[in-house]
């Protein structure tokens, strides 16, 4: 989404601090002043132009393609030639036999992402922050960044090797410890734990960067004052460190919730097989399956559009809540 490209993501300070226009300002007045400002400082607006063109060309113009969600689109007939069918595809989606399964699988994975994968970098960053030996801290940081640079294909390959039935090292260890004969790769009960393990392994280290930056910005005097007041390490953590990074956490949470339903196509697709498909099918894989494999472009576009609308509602809702209960929000 557009939001993820915004540099605001890295900014730990509240972004909106009451710069609303005066309540009385009418839209005509605003328009006139825009024209006036344009005339006064054309160079500023000229500098804005590349950004506007970028978004117009690469983000807004392709949205025209959404129209095929309301057509029976055939590539060969093109967008002009394909017949319009209104909301047929949405009806088919909501009344179809797969919708409930897809929705619940997607929501469960999204929920796990928010409660497990989201806090993990925060906890690791707090732990790293407490380390005294700079060398050790740097070493650990570098080591946990590395998995981020591996593609999902490699991560999946490693997963298959490590968790292979009977011969994978982790499978062997697990069976020795707990007995039995676990088929990690095919057992539906193990699908979500495996996905979460992959996500944590690949993303946690990288995710700490932003929080470490926020932690570096905490005023040292606050710790000194807390120490003089007799605060121990945990009390410093609770009363100084955590409040200091809360705005960052909230901004990150809002940004994350916008991608709430993006469950990671590659990751899931490569771990799916006949035996775990019931828990593995999510909107992203279904869109691929229907659209690319089965050639049902319109239907899969309709699913994608539905997903985007839900994402938009979630991000607006989260932003509203954040604005209401805390001082930080995105817009």
């Amino acid at each position, binding site marked *: 989404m557009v939001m993820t490209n915004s540099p605001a993501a890295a900014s730990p300070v509240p972004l909106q601090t009451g710069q609303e226009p005066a309540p009385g300002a009418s839209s005509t007045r605003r328009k006139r002043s825009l024209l006036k400002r344009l005339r006064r400082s054309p160079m500023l*607006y000229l500098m804005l132009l590349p950004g506007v063109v970028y978004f117009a060309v690469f983000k807004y113009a392709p949205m025209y393609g959404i129209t095929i969600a309301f057509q029976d689109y055939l*590539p060969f007939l093109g967008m002009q030639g394909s017949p319009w069918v209104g909301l047929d595809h949405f009806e088919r989606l909501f009344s179809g036999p797969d919708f409930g399964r897809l929705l619940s699988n997607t929501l469960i994975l999204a929920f796990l992402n928010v409660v497990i994968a989201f806090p993990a970098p925060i906890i690791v960053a707090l732990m790293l922050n407490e380390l005294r030996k700079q060398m050790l801290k740097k070493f650990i940081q570098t080591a946990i960044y590395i998995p981020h640079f591996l593609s999902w294909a490699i991560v999946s390959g490693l997963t298959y090797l490590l968790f*292979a039935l009977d011969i994978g090292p982790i499978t062997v260890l697990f069976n020795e410890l707990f007995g039995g004969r676990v088929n990690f790769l095919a057992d539906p009960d193990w699908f979500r734990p495996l996905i979460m393990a992959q996500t944590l392994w690949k993303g946690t280290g990288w995710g700490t960067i932003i929080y470490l930056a926020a932690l570096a910005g905490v005023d040292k005097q606050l710790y000194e004052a807390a120490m003089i007041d007799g605060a121990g390490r945990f009390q410093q953590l609770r009363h100084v460190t955590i409040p200091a990074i809360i705005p960052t956490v909230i901004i990150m949470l809002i940004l994350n919730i916008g991608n709430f339903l993006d469950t990671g196509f590659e990751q899931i697709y490569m771990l799916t*097989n*006949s*035996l775990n498909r019931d828990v593995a099918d999510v909107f992203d894989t279904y869109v691929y399956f229907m659209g690319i494999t089965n050639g049902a472009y319109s239907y899969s576009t309709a699913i994608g559009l539905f997903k985007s609308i839900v994402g938009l509602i979630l991000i607006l809702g989260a932003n509203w809540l954040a604005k209401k209960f805390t001082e930080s929000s995105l817009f």
Partner: protein
Amino acid sequence: MFSRRTLLGGAAAGAATLGLAACGGGGGSADADAEITTLKIMAPLLSDTAPDPEGQLQTAIEEFIGMPLEITWVPNSSYSDRVTVTMASDNIPHVMVHTGKSAELAQTAEAGGYWDLTDILPEYPNLTPENEDVAHGASINGRTYGIFRLRDAMRASVILRKDWLDNLGLAEPETTDDLREIARAFTDDDPAGDGSATTGLIIPAWSGYGNNGPYDLWETWHGTANVWKEEGGSLSPAFLAPEFIEANRTMREMVEAGQVNADFATMDSGTWNEPFFNGQGGIIADVSSRGLQLMGLFKDADPEGYGDKVTMVGNLKNPDGTLWALPTPGYSGYLTIPKAAVPGDAQLATVLTALDKLSSEEGQRLLNNGIEGVNYEVDGDQAVAIESEEASLIQSDVSAFAQIGTQSNGYLGLPAKPEGEAEAALDQKRLDYHEADLEHAVFNPGSAYMSQSYLQNGAILDQIVVDARLKFLAGQLDEAGLEAELERWTSSGGQQVVDEMNELYQQG
């Protein structure tokens, strides 16, 4: 002033992109009168390296058809995705190779995206199908939208470790019961004689239904028919036949007894030969050419004693002694001609004339054997490979160019002469089984028909069956659960497919 001009420029850029987006997807309409001087083809590439466009073989083919070629080779693994994407682009080739009868093909064909060749092909003697049954099966509801690529109608076989059979004193299997006994013995009786852990059958993760996979073979041998079962003039899905449950019950027993590799749901099919070669399993049910491949592996490891490692039989009889053999569709995809690239009749004639030449005896030999005297020599009615650097280059090109050959008028190329005595014997055995089995082949009576609801939901519906079957075999579902899943097939749109198929079947 500066600002206004830039604003206008920005607006123009925005409008232009909208216009571009609006034009996209219209297809690359070529001029209907322009002459085709270069033949553009898109084809799948099954090997690692694409042929050199300046290479000897391509030059020879270009000389033969009297026209330069421009071939886009696309790796086979992503080929069908690329076909759909290419058909939506404005760079459409004159000849599009399709690897199967996909939903995309049927939909685009029926919307007029590919030439309907039903009444045109008879004008080209080398493009007129030799086998009417295959031609009918390859049609889409009776219309011909492409020139099918001929393949052997019978390829099924059971490949076994011959030395293991000999060690245990077992005979080659004739019935499915024999095979179960062999699978048991291969698992329990230490066939390798060294105490190593072994299983009987080796089955990789197999996707899709009704595509001649190991499970399809097992079911057809038990009498489920082939994808569609015809009874009393109407069609019903083969997996709703009672034999389907029965076949999978015995398969499940083998799985539970450890006579099938335990990772059958996840094993990469690209590594199918390895457990057989390494002595972890002793039975593979697949196309017969795999038997020769396996023998080649053993030969590489042991050039002397490889001859008694691999044997094969054809289709297996059911326990009553009835033989239901599973044939292939007899073809593997098509060469279609997109109208967007070939809009005019004269252009169509140019393309078809070139394809007609390629399907003549000389053309077929170029595509399937190579250049006589350079990479092969004729020995009787077989081709003998010549060993040289030049020859091996052409040989690797031949394996790619074979993909654009159709042979729908019958195969006129030369079969390759097997290298050694053991290979020749195995090859002969394989061909004998094919011939004998073909008389008992159970053809798919619904192969020519494509129902609208199958086009819409086919992939999802097939998946229900594939998943249910595997879950049952893995013990995740019991028999009632399997039946419930098959019932779900019927209720989530399958019944509509059955009704539409029967309507088409009565008409056709």
